[in-house]
């Protein structure tokens, strides 16, 4: 369940020390395998059960977060606007706020389990429909960026660590640290000024925002969307690759002095084979965990960049819901975002043993 720590290493399950003769071929061939599969199923089941508990906890949290902390949710939603007492009463009734707390809670849980997160205050449509409409745009943008920055981060991280201390290592690390400190939305705004609006001799080359210009069909539509994707993807990659690079770099540096690498070199393997086949698979383990944390954020994390580029995705929707504030929509999105992160973490936990044979068997 943990996002930042790898699952605990399982102690070697070996028999009495130095018993080559007693470990008969049959027991060695079938015994551990069967035992492993069973242990793995148990491990995976425990992880899934943990995820279910977490999801339920998210539901409960969001209930209390949006009903108990605001002194009066309806007043907050209507903000400074002039609303009559009668209208307020109607709204309260509409959101079920006039019912006793326990009843609100049970009906909320029941509704949520059937995918009903209520009706959006600003759009007057079911929250779940708004979310379903916006999801594909988010997946397109952040999915593209995710693949690019993960690949770039792993590639550069490996390169810099392998040439630790070299000029290119120092430059790459410094560059990554700098981009890591830059707010994503600001970088997006700058890119818009430079490449969309145009500055000095640079003409405006890219659209300032949105997903499409409208009116295009077929192949032209694909090109148009790709054109709109360029700047937001660059923004996301720029701030996203740095973390992957730094994690990959430091975990590879941890492996660099390892004895098994000396063994691999002593076998006569070429330097790049030693790196690719021996060092990287070990160094990938922490990076793998990070990649799955980021995968969760493919759905959740990019509120700012979507807002800046007016991208019609979940992040943009979240922003518009915040500024009202449209509490049912905020609540629904909160649940979706948290769910995505929890699912991605669970997936990481379940897949991890396939990468590291020491875990979970």
């Amino acid at each position: 369940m943990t996002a930042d720590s790898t699952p605990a290493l399982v102690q070697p399950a070996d028999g009495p020390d130095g018993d080559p003769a007693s470990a008969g071929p049959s027991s060695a061939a079938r015994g551990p395998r069967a035992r492993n599969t069973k242990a793995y199923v148990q491990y995976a089941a425990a992880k899934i059960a943990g995820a279910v508990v977490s999801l339920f906890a998210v539901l409960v949290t969001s209930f209390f977060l949006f009903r108990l902390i605001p002194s009066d949710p309806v007043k907050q939603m209507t903000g400074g606007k002039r609303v009559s007492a009668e209208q307020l009463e109607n709204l309260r009734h509409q959101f079920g706020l006039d019912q006793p707390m326990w009843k609100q809670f049970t009906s909320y849980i029941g509704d949520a389990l059937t995918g009903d997160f209520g009706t959006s205050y600003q759009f007057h449509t079911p929250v779940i429909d708004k979310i379903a409409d916006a999801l594909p745009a988010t997946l397109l943008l952040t999915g593209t960026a995710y693949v690019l920055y993960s690949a770039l981060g792993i590639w550069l991280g490996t390169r810099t660590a392998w040439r630790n201390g070299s000029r290119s290592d120092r430059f790459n690390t410094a560059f990554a640290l700098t981009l890591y400190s830059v707010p994503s939305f600001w970088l997006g705004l700058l890119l818009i000024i430079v490449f969309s609006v145009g500055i000095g001799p640079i003409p405006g080359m890219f659209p300032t925002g949105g997903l499409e210009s409208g009116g295009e069909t077929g192949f032209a539509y694909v090109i148009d969307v790709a054109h709109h994707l360029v700047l937001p993807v660059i923004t996301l990659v720029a701030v996203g690759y740095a973390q992957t690079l730094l994690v990959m770099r430091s975990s590879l540096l941890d492996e660099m002095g390892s004895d098994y690498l000396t063994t691999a070199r002593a076998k006569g393997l070429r330097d790049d084979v030693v790196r690719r086949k021996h060092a990287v698979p070990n160094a990938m383990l922490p990076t793998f965990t990070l990649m799955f944390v980021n995968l969760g954020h493919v759905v959740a994390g990019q509120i700012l960049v979507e807002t800046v580029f007016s991208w019609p995705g979940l992040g943009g929707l979240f922003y518009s819901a915040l500024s009202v504030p449209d509490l049912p929509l905020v609540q629904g999105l909160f649940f979706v975002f948290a769910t995505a992160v929890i699912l991605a973490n669970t997936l990481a936990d379940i897949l991890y043993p396939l990468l590291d044979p020491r875990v979970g068997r």
Partner: protein
Amino acid sequence: MTLLEVKDLEVTYAGGAQAVRGVNLSVAAGQKLGIAGESGCGKSTLALALLRLLPAGTKVSGEILLNGEDVLAMKWGRVRAVRWAGASIVFQGAMHSLNAVHRVGDQIAEPILLHKKATQAGAKKKVAELLEHVGLPAARAESYPHELSGGQRQRVMIAMALACEPELIIADEPTTALDVMIQAQILRLIEQLVAEQDLGLIMISHDLAVLSDTCDRLAVMYAGRVVEEGPALEVYENAVHPYGKALSAAFPTIGDPASRFAPRGLPGDPPDPSALPSGCTFHPRCPVALDVCAAEDQALREAGPERRAACVHVGPTDASTSAVDARSTTA
């Protein structure tokens, strides 16, 4: 022709530490050479230097003739071809020397595929043979290192070292991390394999008793130099260099109650290789040091038949009498 001949080998690390300072060694086919010394005396550096495995920036000079060909003068492509196929290494602590995320069978097959240009099936068959040869069931090829016990892992390391039928095996503390029973098993295995296949063996250890038991000849290293060498048993039982004496006295002799009740160590620590003492590097710890030791370096000299030692007390005429008995002096 001797299998391996090392001449005037010097290794200086990037930080200025002189780890090996002028070592001469030779190993013939079927011969077993033991190298003994405290940790930090340069014995592991020596092992890595033989296959040019030291980190970039390390200065290595001298000659390492493997079958008459100088390893230090080879192109990198040739070095890679010689690694494992010409000489292989059994490292200490097999848990860390094996890659945790690959099956041991694949790790043994790796050099076979590389050097012997074998097919996957051929390599797999060879792996099974090798594992059974070192006393493991062939099915162990499917295991991961963490699923094996310490002794089993060391057997895998030995099977791996034999994979390309090298002429020379370098065993760097092959039994240090194991408990005594397993240690004996592994030593017997190594001895048996060396005898069967007429291999050359260099065994490195801090344990003089283990070495004298397994090896034909013994070289004792101190501060990057060989300070004493000779037939294994003679060096162990009757060392002439004060350091050799101290080292063998540190292990109680079975059947000698006196040694059991008074195991002797040596005061002080081995010198820092980047700031070595003047003259004979052993003189600050030497119980029988003379004034001349602090000023003059002592070279290896004859100390009896097939024996050499680097000590001022060792003369070509009466080696055994002039060497003052280190055990008689109080530390």
